[in-house]
Protein backbone atom coordinates (compact mmCIF):
# COMPACT_ATOMS: atom_id res chain seq x y z
CA UNK A 1 0.00 0.00 0.00
CA UNK A 2 1.33 3.44 -0.88
CA UNK A 3 1.92 5.79 2.00
CA UNK A 4 0.45 8.58 -0.13
CA UNK A 5 -3.01 7.25 0.58
CA UNK A 6 -2.78 8.19 4.24
CA UNK A 7 -1.60 11.75 3.77
CA UNK A 8 -3.56 14.66 2.38
CA UNK A 9 -0.59 15.71 0.26
CA UNK A 10 2.44 13.50 0.42
CA UNK A 11 5.73 15.35 0.45
CA UNK A 12 8.86 14.10 -1.10
CA UNK A 13 12.41 15.25 -0.48
CA UNK A 14 14.55 15.68 -3.57
CA UNK A 15 17.95 16.97 -4.56
CA UNK A 16 17.51 19.11 -7.66
CA UNK A 17 20.17 19.30 -10.34
CA UNK A 18 19.78 22.09 -12.89
CA UNK A 19 20.65 21.48 -16.53
CA UNK A 20 20.58 23.17 -19.90
CA UNK A 21 17.97 22.41 -22.55
CA UNK A 22 18.60 23.72 -26.05
CA UNK A 23 14.92 24.22 -26.88
CA UNK A 24 14.51 26.37 -23.78
CA UNK A 25 17.75 28.28 -24.55
CA UNK A 26 16.60 28.92 -28.11
CA UNK A 27 13.18 30.17 -26.98
CA UNK A 28 14.89 32.45 -24.44
CA UNK A 29 16.76 34.17 -27.28
CA UNK A 30 13.37 35.14 -28.71
CA UNK A 31 11.63 36.17 -25.48
CA UNK A 32 12.02 35.54 -21.77
CA UNK A 33 8.40 36.55 -21.28
CA UNK A 34 6.77 34.09 -23.69
CA UNK A 35 4.39 31.27 -22.82
CA UNK A 36 6.79 28.90 -24.55
CA UNK A 37 9.69 29.93 -22.28
CA UNK A 38 7.51 29.41 -19.23
CA UNK A 39 6.40 26.01 -20.52
CA UNK A 40 9.97 24.84 -21.12
CA UNK A 41 11.35 26.33 -17.88
CA UNK A 42 8.75 25.75 -15.18
CA UNK A 43 9.14 22.00 -14.98
CA UNK A 44 10.64 19.46 -12.62
CA UNK A 45 11.72 16.16 -14.17
CA UNK A 46 11.56 13.25 -11.79
CA UNK A 47 12.08 9.53 -11.57
CA UNK A 48 8.91 7.71 -12.64
CA UNK A 49 8.72 5.96 -9.25
CA UNK A 50 9.03 9.26 -7.39
CA UNK A 51 6.17 10.76 -9.40
CA UNK A 52 3.99 7.84 -8.34
CA UNK A 53 4.93 8.30 -4.68
CA UNK A 54 3.82 11.92 -4.89
CA UNK A 55 0.41 10.81 -6.04
CA UNK A 56 0.55 12.98 -9.13
CA UNK A 57 0.69 12.36 -12.85
CA UNK A 58 2.98 13.76 -15.51
CA UNK A 59 1.73 17.19 -16.50
CA UNK A 60 0.19 17.91 -13.08
CA UNK A 61 1.50 20.86 -11.12
CA UNK A 62 3.61 20.51 -8.00
CA UNK A 63 4.82 22.84 -5.28
CA UNK A 64 8.59 22.80 -4.90
CA UNK A 65 9.82 24.63 -1.82
CA UNK A 66 12.57 25.04 0.71
CA UNK A 67 13.79 27.78 3.08
CA UNK A 68 14.81 29.97 0.15
CA UNK A 69 11.49 30.07 -1.68
CA UNK A 70 8.63 28.31 -3.37
CA UNK A 71 7.57 27.77 -6.98
CA UNK A 72 4.80 25.90 -8.68
CA UNK A 73 5.94 23.98 -11.74
CA UNK A 74 4.79 21.10 -13.89
CA UNK A 75 5.89 17.55 -13.18
CA UNK A 76 7.56 15.69 -15.99
CA UNK A 77 9.32 12.38 -16.31
CA UNK A 78 13.07 12.48 -16.79
CA UNK A 79 12.86 9.74 -19.40
CA UNK A 80 16.05 8.10 -18.11
CA UNK A 81 16.02 4.31 -18.03
CA UNK A 82 18.22 4.12 -14.94
CA UNK A 83 16.37 4.87 -11.71
CA UNK A 84 17.41 8.09 -9.98
CA UNK A 85 15.24 8.05 -6.92
CA UNK A 86 15.43 11.27 -4.90
CA UNK A 87 17.18 13.20 -7.66
CA UNK A 88 15.16 15.58 -9.81
CA UNK A 89 16.14 17.80 -12.71
CA UNK A 90 15.09 21.34 -13.54
CA UNK A 91 16.20 23.42 -16.54
CA UNK A 92 18.34 26.34 -15.44
CA UNK A 93 15.84 29.22 -15.18
CA UNK A 94 14.33 31.84 -12.88
CA UNK A 95 12.04 29.08 -11.57
CA UNK A 96 14.87 26.84 -10.37
CA UNK A 97 16.77 29.87 -9.06
CA UNK A 98 13.98 30.65 -6.59
CA UNK A 99 15.06 27.53 -4.71
CA UNK A 100 18.76 28.43 -4.47
CA UNK A 101 20.14 29.31 -1.06
CA UNK A 102 21.84 32.64 -0.37
CA UNK A 103 24.38 30.74 1.71
CA UNK A 104 27.33 29.81 -0.47
CA UNK A 105 29.76 29.47 2.41
CA UNK A 106 31.29 32.72 1.18
CA UNK A 107 32.44 31.05 -2.04
CA UNK A 108 30.36 33.19 -4.38
CA UNK A 109 29.12 30.06 -6.15
CA UNK A 110 25.49 29.00 -5.54
CA UNK A 111 24.70 25.28 -5.50
CA UNK A 112 23.09 25.09 -8.92
CA UNK A 113 23.54 21.33 -9.06
CA UNK A 114 22.47 20.24 -5.60
CA UNK A 115 19.37 22.04 -4.36
CA UNK A 116 17.61 20.36 -1.42
CA UNK A 117 13.85 20.85 -1.67
CA UNK A 118 10.50 19.28 -0.89
CA UNK A 119 7.94 18.48 -3.62
CA UNK A 120 4.21 18.02 -3.12
CA UNK A 121 1.12 18.12 -5.31
CA UNK A 122 -0.08 21.65 -6.08
CA UNK A 123 -3.62 20.23 -6.34
CA UNK A 124 -4.37 21.94 -9.61
CA UNK A 125 -2.91 25.34 -8.71
CA UNK A 126 -1.36 26.95 -11.76
CA UNK A 127 2.33 27.34 -12.50
CA UNK A 128 4.15 30.38 -11.06
CA UNK A 129 3.85 33.00 -13.80
CA UNK A 130 6.41 35.43 -15.12
CA UNK A 131 4.72 38.30 -13.24
CA UNK A 132 5.72 36.69 -9.96
CA UNK A 133 9.36 37.30 -10.77
CA UNK A 134 8.75 40.98 -11.35
CA UNK A 135 7.34 41.47 -7.87
CA UNK A 136 9.60 42.78 -5.16
CA UNK A 137 9.86 39.58 -3.23
CA UNK A 138 9.21 35.89 -3.83
CA UNK A 139 10.01 34.78 -0.32
CA UNK A 140 7.02 32.98 1.15
Amino acid at each position, binding site marked *: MEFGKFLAAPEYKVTI*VTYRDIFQSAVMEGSRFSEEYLKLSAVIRMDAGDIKKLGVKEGDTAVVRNDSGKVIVRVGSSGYDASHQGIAYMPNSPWSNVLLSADTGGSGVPRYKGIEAVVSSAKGESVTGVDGFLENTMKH
Partner: protein
Amino acid sequence: MVTLLNENYHVCTGCALLCDDIEVVTGSGRITEVKTACRKGVARMKGCSEPMSPTVDGQEVDIDNAIGAAAGILSNARSPLVFGLGNSTNMAQKKAIELAKRIGAVIDDTSSFCQGPTLEAIFNENIRSTTLDDVRNKADVIVYWGADASNSHPRHFSKYSYFPRGQERQRGWEEDRIMITIDIRRSHTAKISGDKFYQIPLQADAEFIDALIDALSGKVPKVSFGFDIKRILELANILKKARFGTIFVGLGLVYSIDNMDPVVKLMDKLNEMSNFHLIPMVGHYNMRGFNQNLFNETGYLNRVKFEKGDSTDVQHGAEFSIVETLNNKAADAALVIGSDPLSSLPRVIAEHLLNIPVITIDPCETFTSRKAKVTIPSALSGVECGGSAIRMDGVEVKFEPIIETNRPPDEEILTRIMEAL
Protein backbone atom coordinates in the same frame (compact mmCIF):
# COMPACT_ATOMS: atom_id res chain seq x y z
CA MET B 1 43.17 34.74 -34.93
CA VAL B 2 40.52 33.13 -37.08
CA THR B 3 40.18 34.44 -40.63
CA LEU B 4 36.92 33.73 -42.37
CA LEU B 5 37.30 31.22 -45.20
CA ASN B 6 34.64 32.72 -47.40
CA GLU B 7 33.53 36.31 -47.77
CA ASN B 8 29.89 35.24 -47.39
CA TYR B 9 30.53 33.68 -44.00
CA HIS B 10 29.52 35.30 -40.73
CA VAL B 11 30.23 34.47 -37.10
CA CYS B 12 27.50 33.19 -34.79
CA THR B 13 27.57 34.77 -31.32
CA GLY B 14 25.10 32.27 -29.86
CA CYS B 15 27.77 30.65 -27.69
CA ALA B 16 31.54 30.56 -27.13
CA LEU B 17 32.04 28.14 -30.02
CA LEU B 18 31.80 31.22 -32.27
CA CYS B 19 31.03 29.21 -35.43
CA ASP B 20 32.65 31.06 -38.32
CA ASP B 21 30.94 29.47 -41.34
CA ILE B 22 27.42 30.86 -41.15
CA GLU B 23 25.60 32.15 -44.21
CA VAL B 24 22.49 34.27 -43.88
CA VAL B 25 19.68 35.71 -45.97
CA THR B 26 18.48 39.19 -45.02
CA GLY B 27 15.30 41.10 -45.76
CA SER B 28 13.61 44.24 -44.38
CA GLY B 29 16.49 44.93 -41.99
CA ARG B 30 16.38 41.50 -40.36
CA ILE B 31 18.04 38.15 -40.80
CA THR B 32 15.39 35.90 -42.32
CA GLU B 33 17.35 32.69 -42.91
CA VAL B 34 20.45 31.21 -41.28
CA LYS B 35 22.48 28.37 -42.76
CA THR B 36 24.60 25.84 -40.83
CA ALA B 37 24.04 27.39 -37.37
CA CYS B 38 22.30 25.27 -34.71
CA ARG B 39 18.83 25.95 -33.36
CA LYS B 40 20.13 28.24 -30.60
CA GLY B 41 22.45 30.17 -32.93
CA VAL B 42 19.61 30.75 -35.38
CA ALA B 43 17.44 32.13 -32.57
CA ARG B 44 20.25 34.47 -31.48
CA MET B 45 20.95 35.75 -34.99
CA LYS B 46 17.30 36.31 -35.89
CA GLY B 47 16.94 38.55 -32.83
CA CYS B 48 14.38 38.84 -30.06
CA SER B 49 10.72 39.75 -30.21
CA GLU B 50 11.01 42.24 -27.32
CA PRO B 51 13.66 44.83 -28.18
CA MET B 52 14.45 47.19 -25.30
CA SER B 53 13.64 50.91 -25.47
CA PRO B 54 15.58 53.72 -23.80
CA THR B 55 13.79 54.44 -20.51
CA VAL B 56 14.23 56.24 -17.21
CA ASP B 57 11.90 55.24 -14.35
CA GLY B 58 9.79 53.24 -16.81
CA GLN B 59 9.17 56.25 -19.07
CA GLU B 60 10.44 56.17 -22.62
CA VAL B 61 13.09 58.85 -23.22
CA ASP B 62 15.61 59.54 -25.93
CA ILE B 63 18.88 57.70 -25.64
CA ASP B 64 20.87 60.82 -24.66
CA ASN B 65 18.66 61.31 -21.61
CA ALA B 66 19.03 57.63 -20.67
CA ILE B 67 22.81 57.92 -20.93
CA GLY B 68 22.74 61.12 -18.86
CA ALA B 69 20.63 59.44 -16.16
CA ALA B 70 23.01 56.46 -16.09
CA ALA B 71 26.00 58.76 -15.62
CA GLY B 72 24.14 60.54 -12.82
CA ILE B 73 23.49 57.27 -10.95
CA LEU B 74 27.09 56.10 -11.31
CA SER B 75 28.52 59.50 -10.26
CA ASN B 76 26.46 59.47 -7.07
CA ALA B 77 27.15 55.83 -6.16
CA ARG B 78 29.66 55.14 -3.40
CA SER B 79 30.02 51.45 -4.20
CA PRO B 80 28.79 50.68 -7.69
CA LEU B 81 28.76 47.22 -9.27
CA VAL B 82 29.50 46.54 -12.93
CA PHE B 83 28.32 43.12 -14.09
CA GLY B 84 27.81 41.07 -17.27
CA LEU B 85 29.82 41.61 -20.46
CA GLY B 86 29.83 37.96 -21.59
CA ASN B 87 27.80 39.06 -24.61
CA SER B 88 29.96 42.10 -25.40
CA THR B 89 32.93 42.52 -27.74
CA ASN B 90 36.51 42.80 -26.46
CA MET B 91 36.46 46.53 -27.14
CA ALA B 92 33.30 47.02 -25.06
CA GLN B 93 34.78 44.94 -22.25
CA LYS B 94 37.93 47.07 -22.16
CA LYS B 95 35.74 50.19 -22.00
CA ALA B 96 33.74 48.70 -19.12
CA ILE B 97 36.94 47.92 -17.20
CA GLU B 98 38.07 51.51 -17.77
CA LEU B 99 34.71 52.78 -16.52
CA ALA B 100 34.86 50.54 -13.44
CA LYS B 101 38.29 51.99 -12.63
CA ARG B 102 37.00 55.54 -13.03
CA ILE B 103 34.07 55.10 -10.69
CA GLY B 104 35.77 52.73 -8.23
CA ALA B 105 33.43 49.80 -8.91
CA VAL B 106 33.32 46.12 -8.20
CA ILE B 107 33.45 44.40 -11.59
CA ASP B 108 32.47 40.76 -12.11
CA ASP B 109 31.00 38.48 -14.75
CA THR B 110 29.20 35.14 -14.95
CA SER B 111 32.51 33.23 -14.82
CA SER B 112 32.35 34.05 -11.11
CA PHE B 113 29.76 31.27 -10.72
CA CYS B 114 30.66 29.32 -13.85
CA GLN B 115 34.00 28.40 -15.50
CA GLY B 116 36.12 30.89 -13.50
CA PRO B 117 38.21 28.24 -11.67
CA THR B 118 39.01 26.34 -14.89
CA LEU B 119 40.04 29.46 -16.77
CA GLU B 120 42.12 30.66 -13.80
CA ALA B 121 44.03 27.35 -13.83
CA ILE B 122 44.65 27.73 -17.57
CA PHE B 123 45.67 31.41 -17.37
CA ASN B 124 48.10 30.57 -14.56
CA GLU B 125 49.43 27.63 -16.58
CA ASN B 126 48.51 25.02 -13.98
CA ILE B 127 46.63 23.11 -16.65
CA ARG B 128 47.61 22.56 -20.27
CA SER B 129 45.05 23.64 -22.85
CA THR B 130 44.86 23.49 -26.63
CA THR B 131 42.84 24.90 -29.51
CA LEU B 132 39.74 23.40 -31.06
CA ASP B 133 41.55 23.34 -34.41
CA ASP B 134 44.22 21.09 -32.92
CA VAL B 135 41.49 18.92 -31.43
CA ARG B 136 39.96 18.52 -34.88
CA ASN B 137 43.28 17.77 -36.54
CA LYS B 138 44.81 15.53 -33.90
CA ALA B 139 42.59 14.39 -31.03
CA ASP B 140 42.00 10.64 -30.80
CA VAL B 141 40.52 10.57 -27.30
CA ILE B 142 37.98 13.19 -26.24
CA VAL B 143 36.24 13.30 -22.89
CA TYR B 144 33.15 15.30 -21.97
CA TRP B 145 33.08 15.55 -18.20
CA GLY B 146 29.95 17.00 -16.59
CA ALA B 147 29.23 18.66 -19.91
CA ASP B 148 26.21 18.22 -22.17
CA ALA B 149 27.54 19.89 -25.30
CA SER B 150 24.54 18.65 -27.31
CA ASN B 151 22.41 21.18 -25.46
CA SER B 152 24.96 23.88 -24.62
CA HIS B 153 27.21 23.90 -27.74
CA PRO B 154 25.41 21.72 -30.30
CA ARG B 155 28.07 21.88 -33.05
CA HIS B 156 30.95 20.97 -30.71
CA PHE B 157 31.11 17.35 -31.93
CA SER B 158 30.47 18.01 -35.61
CA LYS B 159 32.70 21.05 -36.07
CA TYR B 160 35.68 20.12 -33.90
CA SER B 161 35.83 17.14 -31.61
CA TYR B 162 34.36 13.85 -32.82
CA PHE B 163 32.91 13.69 -36.31
CA PRO B 164 35.07 15.83 -38.63
CA ARG B 165 38.11 14.55 -40.49
CA GLY B 166 41.36 16.26 -39.54
CA GLN B 167 44.99 16.25 -40.66
CA GLU B 168 45.92 13.29 -38.46
CA ARG B 169 42.36 11.94 -38.28
CA GLN B 170 41.55 11.02 -41.86
CA ARG B 171 39.61 7.82 -41.37
CA GLY B 172 36.45 9.07 -39.75
CA TRP B 173 35.10 9.02 -36.26
CA GLU B 174 34.35 5.28 -35.92
CA GLU B 175 37.99 4.32 -36.46
CA ASP B 176 39.97 7.39 -35.55
CA ARG B 177 38.43 8.80 -32.39
CA ILE B 178 37.03 7.64 -29.07
CA MET B 179 34.49 9.83 -27.33
CA ILE B 180 33.89 9.38 -23.61
CA THR B 181 31.22 10.99 -21.45
CA ILE B 182 31.38 11.10 -17.66
CA ASP B 183 28.19 12.44 -16.09
CA ILE B 184 25.54 11.83 -13.47
CA ARG B 185 22.81 11.32 -16.09
CA ARG B 186 22.48 9.85 -19.56
CA SER B 187 22.39 13.20 -21.34
CA HIS B 188 22.09 13.67 -25.09
CA THR B 189 25.89 13.87 -25.12
CA ALA B 190 26.18 10.59 -23.20
CA LYS B 191 23.98 8.93 -25.85
CA ILE B 192 26.49 9.83 -28.56
CA SER B 193 29.25 8.15 -26.52
CA GLY B 194 27.38 4.85 -26.62
CA ASP B 195 29.10 2.29 -24.39
CA LYS B 196 31.81 4.82 -23.44
CA PHE B 197 29.42 6.55 -21.04
CA TYR B 198 30.49 6.38 -17.40
CA GLN B 199 27.63 7.23 -15.07
CA ILE B 200 28.70 8.37 -11.61
CA PRO B 201 26.64 9.56 -8.62
CA LEU B 202 26.02 13.22 -7.82
CA GLN B 203 29.05 14.90 -6.19
CA ALA B 204 31.23 11.83 -6.80
CA ASP B 205 33.57 13.44 -9.34
CA ALA B 206 36.51 13.93 -6.95
CA GLU B 207 36.27 10.33 -5.81
CA PHE B 208 36.06 9.09 -9.39
CA ILE B 209 39.14 11.16 -10.26
CA ASP B 210 41.05 9.54 -7.38
CA ALA B 211 40.03 6.09 -8.57
CA LEU B 212 41.10 6.96 -12.10
CA ILE B 213 44.50 8.22 -10.88
CA ASP B 214 44.94 4.96 -8.94
CA ALA B 215 44.08 2.96 -12.05
CA LEU B 216 46.52 5.03 -14.11
CA SER B 217 49.19 4.38 -11.47
CA GLY B 218 48.68 0.65 -11.72
CA LYS B 219 46.88 0.38 -8.39
CA VAL B 220 43.50 -1.24 -7.91
CA PRO B 221 40.95 1.59 -7.96
CA LYS B 222 38.35 1.84 -5.19
CA VAL B 223 35.11 3.77 -5.01
CA SER B 224 32.49 3.90 -2.25
CA PHE B 225 29.61 3.66 -4.74
CA GLY B 226 28.70 0.64 -6.84
CA PHE B 227 30.85 0.78 -9.96
CA ASP B 228 32.40 -1.96 -12.01
CA ILE B 229 36.14 -1.67 -11.31
CA LYS B 230 36.87 -3.28 -14.69
CA ARG B 231 35.26 -0.31 -16.39
CA ILE B 232 37.49 2.15 -14.50
CA LEU B 233 40.54 0.13 -15.57
CA GLU B 234 39.24 0.07 -19.14
CA LEU B 235 38.80 3.87 -19.07
CA ALA B 236 42.29 4.39 -17.62
CA ASN B 237 43.68 2.22 -20.36
CA ILE B 238 42.03 4.28 -23.10
CA LEU B 239 43.33 7.52 -21.57
CA LYS B 240 46.82 6.09 -21.14
CA LYS B 241 47.04 5.14 -24.81
CA ALA B 242 45.80 8.49 -26.13
CA ARG B 243 48.13 10.18 -28.59
CA PHE B 244 46.31 13.49 -28.29
CA GLY B 245 43.67 13.59 -25.55
CA THR B 246 41.37 16.45 -24.61
CA ILE B 247 39.01 16.79 -21.66
CA PHE B 248 36.10 19.18 -22.10
CA VAL B 249 35.06 20.34 -18.68
CA GLY B 250 31.44 21.30 -17.99
CA LEU B 251 29.73 22.84 -14.99
CA GLY B 252 28.80 19.38 -13.74
CA LEU B 253 32.44 18.85 -12.84
CA VAL B 254 33.22 22.46 -11.81
CA TYR B 255 30.31 22.61 -9.34
CA SER B 256 31.07 19.19 -7.91
CA ILE B 257 34.58 19.97 -6.65
CA ASP B 258 35.68 22.55 -4.05
CA ASN B 259 38.66 23.67 -6.11
CA MET B 260 40.59 22.61 -9.20
CA ASP B 261 43.18 20.50 -7.30
CA PRO B 262 41.70 17.09 -8.27
CA VAL B 263 41.58 18.11 -11.94
CA VAL B 264 45.16 19.45 -11.85
CA LYS B 265 46.28 16.18 -10.24
CA LEU B 266 44.53 14.10 -12.90
CA MET B 267 45.97 16.20 -15.73
CA ASP B 268 49.49 15.90 -14.25
CA LYS B 269 49.10 12.13 -13.95
CA LEU B 270 47.77 11.84 -17.53
CA ASN B 271 50.64 13.91 -18.85
CA GLU B 272 53.18 11.65 -17.17
CA MET B 273 52.07 8.84 -19.48
CA SER B 274 50.27 10.40 -22.45
CA ASN B 275 49.39 13.77 -23.92
CA PHE B 276 46.36 15.52 -22.47
CA HIS B 277 44.74 18.93 -22.72
CA LEU B 278 41.73 20.59 -21.19
CA ILE B 279 39.22 23.08 -22.57
CA PRO B 280 36.42 24.63 -20.49
CA MET B 281 32.94 24.60 -22.02
CA VAL B 282 32.49 28.36 -21.85
CA GLY B 283 28.87 29.45 -22.36
CA HIS B 284 28.49 33.13 -23.30
CA TYR B 285 30.19 33.99 -26.54
CA ASN B 286 32.81 36.30 -25.05
CA MET B 287 32.99 35.37 -21.38
CA ARG B 288 36.56 34.18 -21.88
CA GLY B 289 37.33 37.52 -23.55
CA PHE B 290 36.23 39.40 -20.44
CA ASN B 291 38.33 37.12 -18.25
CA GLN B 292 41.35 37.58 -20.51
CA ASN B 293 40.93 41.35 -20.74
CA LEU B 294 40.56 41.79 -16.97
CA PHE B 295 43.45 39.37 -16.35
CA ASN B 296 45.71 41.36 -18.69
CA GLU B 297 44.79 44.53 -16.82
CA THR B 298 44.85 43.34 -13.19
CA GLY B 299 46.19 39.80 -12.97
CA TYR B 300 42.71 38.59 -11.94
CA LEU B 301 40.04 37.23 -14.26
CA ASN B 302 36.95 38.29 -12.27
CA ARG B 303 35.77 39.48 -8.79
CA VAL B 304 37.78 42.69 -8.77
CA LYS B 305 37.24 45.96 -6.87
CA PHE B 306 38.86 49.16 -8.06
CA GLU B 307 39.48 52.09 -5.74
CA LYS B 308 38.16 55.43 -7.02
CA GLY B 309 40.95 57.77 -8.01
CA ASP B 310 43.71 55.21 -7.54
CA SER B 311 44.05 52.97 -10.57
CA THR B 312 46.79 50.88 -8.93
CA ASP B 313 44.58 49.81 -6.01
CA VAL B 314 43.00 46.54 -7.12
CA GLN B 315 41.37 44.17 -4.65
CA HIS B 316 40.27 40.66 -5.53
CA GLY B 317 38.41 37.90 -3.73
CA ALA B 318 35.16 36.00 -3.26
CA GLU B 319 33.70 38.99 -1.36
CA PHE B 320 33.85 40.91 -4.66
CA SER B 321 31.90 38.25 -6.55
CA ILE B 322 28.47 39.43 -7.70
CA VAL B 323 26.85 36.81 -5.48
CA GLU B 324 28.54 37.95 -2.25
CA THR B 325 28.37 41.64 -3.21
CA LEU B 326 24.59 41.43 -3.53
CA ASN B 327 24.27 39.02 -0.61
CA ASN B 328 26.13 41.49 1.64
CA LYS B 329 24.10 44.36 0.17
CA ALA B 330 27.46 45.98 -0.55
CA ALA B 331 26.45 47.66 -3.83
CA ASP B 332 24.42 50.88 -3.95
CA ALA B 333 24.03 50.94 -7.76
CA ALA B 334 24.51 48.44 -10.56
CA LEU B 335 25.39 48.67 -14.23
CA VAL B 336 24.36 45.45 -15.98
CA ILE B 337 25.62 44.91 -19.53
CA GLY B 338 24.22 42.09 -21.69
CA SER B 339 23.16 39.94 -18.77
CA ASP B 340 20.04 39.14 -16.74
CA PRO B 341 21.09 38.55 -13.12
CA LEU B 342 17.49 38.73 -11.87
CA SER B 343 16.88 35.58 -13.85
CA SER B 344 20.24 33.78 -13.57
CA LEU B 345 21.18 34.35 -9.92
CA PRO B 346 19.54 32.85 -6.84
CA ARG B 347 16.35 34.85 -6.40
CA VAL B 348 17.02 35.66 -2.71
CA ILE B 349 20.36 37.17 -3.68
CA ALA B 350 19.18 38.97 -6.85
CA GLU B 351 16.41 40.68 -4.89
CA HIS B 352 18.94 43.26 -3.67
CA LEU B 353 18.91 44.58 -7.24
CA LEU B 354 15.29 45.64 -6.64
CA ASN B 355 16.41 47.98 -3.83
CA ILE B 356 19.14 49.86 -5.69
CA PRO B 357 19.18 51.86 -8.92
CA VAL B 358 20.03 49.53 -11.81
CA ILE B 359 21.11 50.50 -15.33
CA THR B 360 20.81 47.83 -18.04
CA ILE B 361 22.48 47.93 -21.43
CA ASP B 362 21.04 45.19 -23.65
CA PRO B 363 19.48 44.71 -27.09
CA CYS B 364 16.45 42.97 -25.55
CA GLU B 365 14.16 43.23 -22.57
CA THR B 366 15.12 41.02 -19.65
CA PHE B 367 13.73 40.37 -16.17
CA THR B 368 16.40 42.76 -14.87
CA SER B 369 15.59 45.48 -17.42
CA ARG B 370 11.90 45.43 -16.52
CA LYS B 371 12.86 46.42 -12.96
CA ALA B 372 15.72 48.76 -13.92
CA LYS B 373 15.74 52.52 -13.33
CA VAL B 374 17.51 53.18 -16.61
CA THR B 375 17.52 51.05 -19.75
CA ILE B 376 19.76 51.72 -22.75
CA PRO B 377 19.23 49.62 -25.88
CA SER B 378 22.38 48.42 -27.64
CA ALA B 379 23.24 46.76 -30.93
CA LEU B 380 23.25 42.95 -30.97
CA SER B 381 26.90 42.04 -31.39
CA GLY B 382 27.81 39.82 -34.31
CA VAL B 383 24.58 40.83 -36.04
CA GLU B 384 24.20 44.59 -35.69
CA CYS B 385 27.77 45.50 -34.74
CA GLY B 386 31.22 44.07 -35.33
CA GLY B 387 34.24 43.52 -33.13
CA SER B 388 36.20 40.60 -31.81
CA ALA B 389 35.75 37.92 -29.19
CA ILE B 390 37.69 35.06 -27.58
CA ARG B 391 36.44 31.55 -28.36
CA MET B 392 36.20 28.98 -25.54
CA ASP B 393 39.71 27.76 -26.43
CA GLY B 394 41.33 31.21 -26.30
CA VAL B 395 41.43 31.87 -30.04
CA GLU B 396 40.41 35.35 -31.13
CA VAL B 397 37.58 35.60 -33.67
CA LYS B 398 36.72 38.82 -35.53
CA PHE B 399 33.32 39.62 -36.94
CA GLU B 400 31.58 42.30 -38.98
CA PRO B 401 28.01 43.58 -38.63
CA ILE B 402 25.44 41.89 -40.88
CA ILE B 403 22.54 44.32 -40.71
CA GLU B 404 22.25 48.02 -39.94
CA THR B 405 20.77 49.49 -36.81
CA ASN B 406 20.49 52.88 -35.18
CA ARG B 407 21.16 51.34 -31.77
CA PRO B 408 24.72 52.06 -30.68
CA PRO B 409 27.13 49.27 -29.75
CA ASP B 410 27.99 48.69 -26.05
CA GLU B 411 31.37 50.40 -26.30
CA GLU B 412 29.84 53.58 -27.67
CA ILE B 413 27.27 53.69 -24.87
CA LEU B 414 29.99 53.11 -22.26
CA THR B 415 32.20 55.81 -23.80
CA ARG B 416 29.31 58.27 -23.73
CA ILE B 417 28.49 57.42 -20.11
CA MET B 418 32.12 58.08 -19.21
CA GLU B 419 32.05 61.42 -21.01
CA ALA B 420 28.92 62.38 -19.09
CA LEU B 421 30.28 61.44 -15.65
